[in-house]
């Protein structure tokens, strides 16, 4: 098991290194920060000074080697815009995104497992039809459109909730509500499909013949077998969320990693872009590892020797 984790880490380190190289050069392709951060009428002397100050005048390869050396020492550079360590800015923004993602995914997992299993119990029944169509609708809704419609209805017309901002519970209701919609719709489909398969399989029949309680059959025996595909899909959705909830965060004004990243790209704040991507990639790697370990816990047949 530890050997497996070690090998996985090595693979991911390679992927991570490639990612960093790609981001470093791609980000620099977007243009010169001097164009964005200095006044339009700045003269050449000021530009040169700015570039020298931030090390932008040196050859690209030298910049990259300095950057790579610093990364290995845990220094991800300084934000050109805020003059703060980029890593600090990222680590400040990340918890906001993580909170949003964890809250949303917990709601999605619990509700989708419950609703999907209920729908799968009688495939084609009234409940199943209602669940299928409404979950497909939820999965098809463009989140930005739902978000602005929700703001229009609940904040502008009814004045129940704040339009945007970061703070107490009332600020979380709309973003979480919108965020939950699509993952819920998609996960319900998966849970329903695999539960129908599990409930039709011989071991469920055996359990029924033994006279086992129906609730135990559904929630212990069948659900456990139906969990694997759900974990895959839920994991993918979690990765998507960790990757930055750019749209939700920018519509609702949440100071998370997605907003930080998109602002940094627009401002050509390379250090922040690189730091956010590096931290995100590490988080995704950890998540994939957790998902793999969950697989093993759920299905003893899978062994990572």
């Amino acid at each position: 098991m530890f050997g497996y984790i070690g090998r996985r880490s090595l693979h991911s380190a390679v992927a991570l290194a490639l990612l960093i190289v790609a981001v470093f050069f791609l980000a620099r392709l977007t243009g010169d920060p001097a164009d964005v951060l200095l006044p339009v009428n700045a003269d050449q002397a000021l530009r040169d000074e700015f570039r020298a100050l931030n090390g932008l005048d040196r050859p690209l390869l030298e910049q990259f080697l300095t950057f790579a050396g610093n990364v290995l020492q845990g220094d991800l550079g300084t934000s050109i815009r805020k003059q703060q360590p980029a890593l600090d800015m990222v680590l400040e923004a990340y918890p906001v995104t993580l909170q949003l993602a964890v809250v949303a995914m917990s709601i999605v997992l619990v509700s989708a497992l419950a609703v999907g299993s209920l729908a799968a119990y009688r495939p084609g029944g009234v409940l199943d039809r209602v669940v299928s169509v409404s979950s497909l609708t939820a999965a098809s809704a463009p989140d930005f459109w739902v978000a602005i419609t929700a703001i229009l209805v609940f904040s502008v017309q009814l004045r129940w909730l704040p339009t945007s901002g970061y703070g107490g519970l009332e600020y979380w209701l709309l973003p979480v509500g919108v965020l939950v919609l699509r993952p819920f719709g998609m996960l319900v489909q998966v849970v329903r499909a695999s539960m129908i398969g599990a409930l039709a399989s011989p071991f469920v029949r055996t359990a029924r013949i033994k006279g086992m309680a129906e609730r135990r059959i559904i929630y212990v025996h069948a659900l456990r077998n139906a969990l694997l595909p759900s974990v895959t899909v839920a994991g993918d959705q979690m990765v998507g969320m960790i990757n930055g909830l750019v749209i939700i965060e920018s519509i609702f004004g949440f100071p998370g990693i997605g907003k930080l990243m998109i602002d940094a790209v627009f401002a050509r704040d390379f250090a922040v872009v690189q730091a956010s991507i590096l931290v995100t990639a590490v988080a995704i790697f950890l998540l994939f590892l957790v998902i793999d370990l969950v697989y093993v816990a759920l299905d003893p047949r899978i062994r990572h020797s």
Partner: protein
Amino acid sequence: MAMVAAEQEMVTVRRRVPWWRLLWRDKFALVSALWLALLLVCFAIGPALLADDAVRVNLAARNAPPGLDSGWINLLGADALGRPLLARLVLGTRNTLAIAFSVVLVALCVGGLLGMVAGYLGGVTNALIMRFADVLSSFPSLLLALIVLYVLGPQVVNLIIVLATTRTAIYLRVTRAEVLEIRERVFVDAARALGAGRAHILRRHIAPVVAPTLGTIMTIDFASVMLSESALSFLGIGIQPPEVTWGLMVSQGRNYLGSAWWLAFFPGLAIMLTALSANLLSSWLRTITDPTQRWRLEAPRTLAEGGR
């Protein structure tokens, strides 16, 4: 071809499923199919019919609310310049659908091909391709889109490349997983024993078995690609005006949310209905072709029909 296969499958399904359930499913699938057909009509002849109306400024109908008061063309209302929303929606169909379809097609071809090669050859090739997929999927897709569109400019072709890049890993993983299993089957061994080459086995024996799975994923993916494209356009980094896409229309309508809600509402509704139709149709296809999610058991038959 596909329809014939679907109907042949339906006959076997009908024995097990009560008729009202199939009818019910058909009704939803029917409405979805009708909606998509309508969009195809808009795609084909819409711009020719309504392109002039969609850009004609009519100050008399500025921010006209939905209804028949300002003529049928303003049925869904008009924007701040009095351009009819209906005409703009129809005009936007072409970009929206064309982009989503091309993205799915490109991602399918690249991902499917790489996945087949990785799964069939294994070894170093497999490891290389899978690391490549890891990099692709750990790269924040929106950021990739942002950077590339920034560098290369927000043209339709670049948008397609970017979106396809972010979708490729899905097709790659699914194809590889399927191929890993299929290549161990007896009929592949038989083909190999008869002296078939790798390319031949992949094309004639493995690809047809993977095809149904990929087909289902494609339909669902079509919906999510459309949503991603509209999200990019909404953020202002996708298609730029004066081009028209539904996502862009929502983004432009956002500024008039308080005074003219229809400007953002109807394009969003169109996106949702189209995504929903694609999803409904895909779920119908799945039921028709494999009612118990156990299509693997029926794979030889699927192969025979899919290969026609």
